């Protein structure tokens, strides 16, 4: 219930009493209506918007803020900068500095609808968070007392003047009456309605009615409609726009009422009589006097000397007066703490180039006007006043906005700023300034002009000799050059501005920065930056039922291709552990039994193979005590077999021939196995004095064998004990390989036998070679026997047993001791092999019918 009796501020949320029309906190109208005619812009704290400002702007603000502090410390210096001779607004500065109330015409003060400056003293202190773009300084409003009396009645209420803020003062400080036309009236005045009929004062309406051209008057949107925008839509609008004086060089910037006045003047050129009745009682006296002095104006203009007539308003006289020490040059509205327009020396960097070029304290937007000599609205060109309404309503070219940041431009009246056609145009510097001659011609010849008698400050501007005369500058040129592309891209509300489509094809020639001189490099269109979040598209594939069906079939095909195919494998007879153990047990059992029993019930074969017979024959054919070379090359694992195979032959040889045995080993174990052989099966010969020579290990494989074959003494110079071998009696008269009577190969490796056979092929000559080989190497040595390279072969236990039985009378008996176990083992192997073969054959025969049946 309490809430119903209170009013909540739509801006700051402060709860206000129900009868409160203005927020106690932020001074926002609580009526819900944004703006009212004559209402002064409310100072807003836009501190929260500062983070979104560009960095350069924040830096500039900081710099200006610091400079503002200095300005406050030195107010006389700040307010009285040295004005250039061409500064036609210098008088304004002097007025501002002098705070002369009488120098401002009353009509100018009253038309703004603002209060007297004295009310400013009662104005509450500025909030600390106020920005210079929002509020001006208190001193900015001291000219408001100069409002003409005839316009004082237009002020709806003097009470509102007490609450008028610096923005209003800014507008008052503007030298142009055009600015004064935008002065907010009062905060307490009724809301401003942007209708075409309401934005014009009554006296102007009456003037229009008298002229009969009220309907053709340009739409007020071109001038005042932006002012009716709610503060919420553009928070900085009341600050930026109001702080920026709108001095236009185009006549379209003239307010409606002035345009109407010009139209009236055009309707009756050179006739003051026709103008005077039109003004009627609403026409101020000073305007009437202006009309009366129209005839004298041209002469004064022609003289080239600034004339200060009594007809001119005082403020115009002062404005046009020559700069003097007393009259401080014009400065921007007295800067606040961060006022960047305070002076030329304190301007931010983004304004510095323009200022430096002009080398004066006048802002660029004022300089351009000075170069143009005369505001268009003062020229009162008859032809221009008859332009169509749309042309009149065309946005004024505000040269002062060229270097304004985007946020300032956005806050400015948009039609004035942004409805300029975007066409490639030279920059401000390149643009030919409005010639003084043109202005003078208009002033001299335009007897029908409203302001034929120009103020002094305008006359000074016209007489500026340093500015060359040139043809008038078009609005397009000024507009396009004043707005960089990057600022235009950042401009808000661009799409809502009529005619912005022309900016899409902007071929603006860049004037500044790294892109200076390039044309159309920065898109000025609305599509430069996305204005909304991109649409989120779903990545889900949208398919219909038929496509899903086909996809399913395709997946089935792929699955069938990639599925592993189960192969039917035949059941094989695995290596059973039981079977393995059974065979091992049988073999070991048989061997153990025969060994323990020492049985010899199995007879040795009677027949003697040829290779064995030839081996024994060759061994028995050597001379007595002949040197015999024995190559030992078998492993320790084969020692039992090799000893059993070789012992009978060597026993026979030693018994009958007493050879001088020289052993050489072609593997590492050969030398020690030689000792084992001689001290094992043939131990009784060694014990009886039989000697032998062990040369030891012959390194190098085939190379070593070949080396030994070519020069045995060099290859094996010493025996196993390190004694020189070739000087021993065992090798007496033996210097080469072919001097041996017999070469016996004792090996379990066919490769070793082949190496000896091959590498000694040429060195041994006709020396016979007898091979005592293992059973596993005998088949591979057999070809050499068949080829005659090996004279005889004694292979394995079988060959040793035959030699032992047939040629050695059973000596030494080693082979015979193993023969029974060997014979049983071979028989078992035969049985197992044949048995396993038959079992596999039987399994195969069983599977064939089933396989055929299956097919």
């Amino acid at each position, binding site marked *: 219930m309490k809430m119903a009796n209170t009013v909540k501020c739509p801006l700051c949320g402060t709860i206000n009493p129900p009868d409160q029309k203005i927020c106690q906190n932020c001074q926002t109208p609580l009526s819900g209506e944004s703006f009212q005619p004559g209402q002064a812009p409310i100072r807003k704290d836009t501190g929260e918007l500062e983070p979104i400002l560009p960095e350069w702007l924040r830096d500039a603000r900081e710099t200006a803020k610091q400079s503002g502090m200095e300005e406050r410390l030195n107010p006389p210096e700040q307010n009285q900068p040295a004005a250039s001779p061409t500064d036609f607004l210098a008088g304004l500065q002097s007025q501002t500095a002098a705070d002369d109330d009488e120098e401002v015409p009353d009509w100018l003060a009253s038309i703004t609808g603002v209060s007297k400056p004295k009310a400013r003293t009662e104005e509450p202190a500025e909030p600390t968070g106020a920005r210079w773009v929002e509020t001006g300084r208190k001193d900015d409003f001291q000219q408001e007392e100069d409002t003409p009396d005839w316009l004082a009645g237009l002020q709806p209420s003097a009470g509102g003047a007490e609450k008028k803020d610096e923005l209003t003062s800014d507008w008052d400080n503007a030298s142009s009456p055009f600015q004064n036309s935008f002065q907010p009236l009062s905060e307490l005045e009724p809301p401003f309605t942007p209708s075409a009929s309401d934005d014009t004062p009554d006296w102007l309406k009456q003037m229009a009615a008298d002229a009969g051209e009220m309907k053709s008057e340009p739409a007020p949107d071109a001038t005042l409609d932006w002012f009716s925008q709610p503060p919420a839509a553009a928070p900085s609008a009341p600050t930026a726009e109001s702080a920026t004086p709108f001095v236009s060089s185009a006549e379209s910037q003239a307010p409606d009422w002035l345009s109407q006045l010009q139209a009236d003047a055009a309707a009756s050129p050179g006739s003051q009589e026709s103008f005077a009745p039109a003004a009627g009682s609403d026409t101020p006296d000073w305007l009437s006097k202006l009309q009366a002095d129209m005839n004298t104006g041209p002469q004064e203009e022609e003289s080239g000397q600034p004339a200060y007539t009594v007809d001119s308003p005082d403020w115009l006289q002062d404005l046009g007066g020559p700069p003097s020490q007393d009259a401080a040059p014009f400065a921007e509205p007295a800067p606040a703490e961060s006022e960047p327009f305070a002076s030329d020396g304190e301007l931010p960097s983004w304004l510095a180039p323009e200022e430096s070029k002009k080398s004066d304290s006048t802002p660029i937007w004022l300089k351009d006007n000075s170069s143009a000599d005369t505001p268009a609205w003062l020229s009162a060109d008859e032809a221009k006043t008859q332009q169509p309404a749309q042309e009149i309503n065309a946005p004024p070219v505000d040269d002062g906005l060229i270097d304004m940041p985007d946020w300032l431009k956005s806050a400015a009246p948009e039609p004035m700023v942004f409805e300029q056609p975007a066409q490639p145009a030279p920059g401000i510097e390149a643009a030919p300034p409005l010639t003084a001659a043109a202005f003078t011609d208009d002033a001299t010849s335009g007897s029908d002009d409203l302001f034929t008698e120009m103020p002094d400050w305008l006359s000074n501007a016209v007489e500026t000799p340093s500015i060359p005369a040139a043809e008038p500058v078009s609005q397009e040129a000024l507009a396009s050059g004043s707005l960089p592309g990057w600022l235009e891209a950042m401009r808000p509300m661009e799409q809502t501005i009529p005619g912005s489509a022309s900016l899409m094809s902007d071929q603006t020639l860049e004037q500044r920065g790294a892109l200076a001189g390039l044309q159309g490099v920065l898109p000025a269109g609305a599509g430069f930056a996305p204005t909304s979040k991109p649409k989120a598209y779903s990545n889900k594939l949208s398919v219909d039922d038929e496509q899903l069906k086909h996809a399913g079939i395709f997946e089935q095909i792929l699955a069938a291709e990639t599925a592993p195919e189960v192969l039917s494998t035949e059941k094989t007879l695995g290596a059973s552990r039981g079977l*393995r*153990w059974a065979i*091992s047990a049988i*073999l*070991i059992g048989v*061997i*153990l039994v025969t*060994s*323990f029993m020492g049985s010899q019930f199995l007879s040795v074969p009677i027949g003697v193979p040829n290779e064995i017979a030839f081996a024994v024959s060759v061994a028995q054919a050597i001379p007595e005590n002949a040197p015999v070379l024995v190559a030992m090359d078998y492993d320790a*694992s*084969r*020692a*039992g*077999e090799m000893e*059993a195979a070789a012992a009978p032959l060597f026993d026979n040889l030693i018994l009958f021939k007493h050879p001088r045995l020289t052993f050489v080993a072609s593997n*590492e*174990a050969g*030398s*020690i196995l030689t000792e084992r052989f001689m001290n094992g099966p043939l131990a009784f010969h060694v014990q009886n004095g039989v000697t032998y020579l062990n040369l*030891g*290990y012959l*390194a190098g494989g*085939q*190379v070593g064998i*070949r080396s030994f074959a070519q020069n045995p003494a060099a290859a094996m*110079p*010493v025996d*196993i004990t*390190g004694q020189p071998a070739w000087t021993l009696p065992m090798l007496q008269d033996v210097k080469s390989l072919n001097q041996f009577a017999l070469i016996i190969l004792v090996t*379990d490796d066919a490769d070793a036998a*082949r*190496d000896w*056979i*091959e*590498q*000694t*092929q*040429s060195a041994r000559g006709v020396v016979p070679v007898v091979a005592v080989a*293992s*059973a*596993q*190497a005998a*088949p*591979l040595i057999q*070809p*050499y026997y*068949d*080829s*005659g*390279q090996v004279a005889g072969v004694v*292979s*394995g*236990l079988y060959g040793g047993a035959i030699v032992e039985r047939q040629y050695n009378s059973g000596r030494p008996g080693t082979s015979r*001791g*193993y023969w029974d*176990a*060997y014979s049983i*083992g*071979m028989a078992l*192997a035969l049985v197992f092999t044949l048995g396993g073969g038959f079992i596999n054959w039987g399994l195969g025969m069983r599977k064939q019918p089933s396989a055929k049946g299956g097919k």
Partner: protein
Amino acid sequence: MIFSLDLVTGALSLLFTVMILSYLIGDNPLFKVAVYLFVGVASGYAATIVIWQVLMPKLFLPTWNIIQTGDYSRMILLAAPWLGFAFILMKISPRLAGTARITMAYLVGVGAAVTIVGALTGTIIPQIEATVNFFDGAISKPADQMLEIALSGGVILLGTVTSLAYFHFGARQKPDGSAKRAGVINLLAWVGRVFIGSALGAVFAGVYAAALTALIERIASIVGFLMSIFGRS
């Protein structure tokens, strides 16, 4: 109690024989211990043999003798062995291992040459000559001997030719893309398979006979050891 060397060696031989035969029940630590021990002992023994029977008598002692006698002219003959020895030792350092390539290249080159020459002069040419001349003189012999020589030589010749034909893999491509050896080659290869199978069977029988002999020797050794122990006790 005094243990003789034969008793110790007999006991160790018995122990290690049992450990090796334990592989019948599968891979077990006893078998691994025995295998590792044999490998280690064999390697150590080989290194010892190389040092004492190769390096010492053929490199170190001659060098020492030269140093002692001062006859350094003979050192030229030892330069190559010393260089080869040094290069091979460079393999210890990975950075200098490349130096050993010189020695290894020399050894491989010489070994390959020796092998080729030995194979040509000791195996290929003699075997060809033996196969070609197998029938020499058979015609002058009696009929029974001539038949024996003819059959024996015929079998040898047939076995040699068919075995070589088996390793002939040349074939012609048929219009359908398949390849098939010629009919004659295919027939000879089939016969060659018989000879090759017979030869491999003979080799397998020899391997089995050799292994059986080794087993008999080992068991006989154990029996003899045990009998000697029990006989002594």
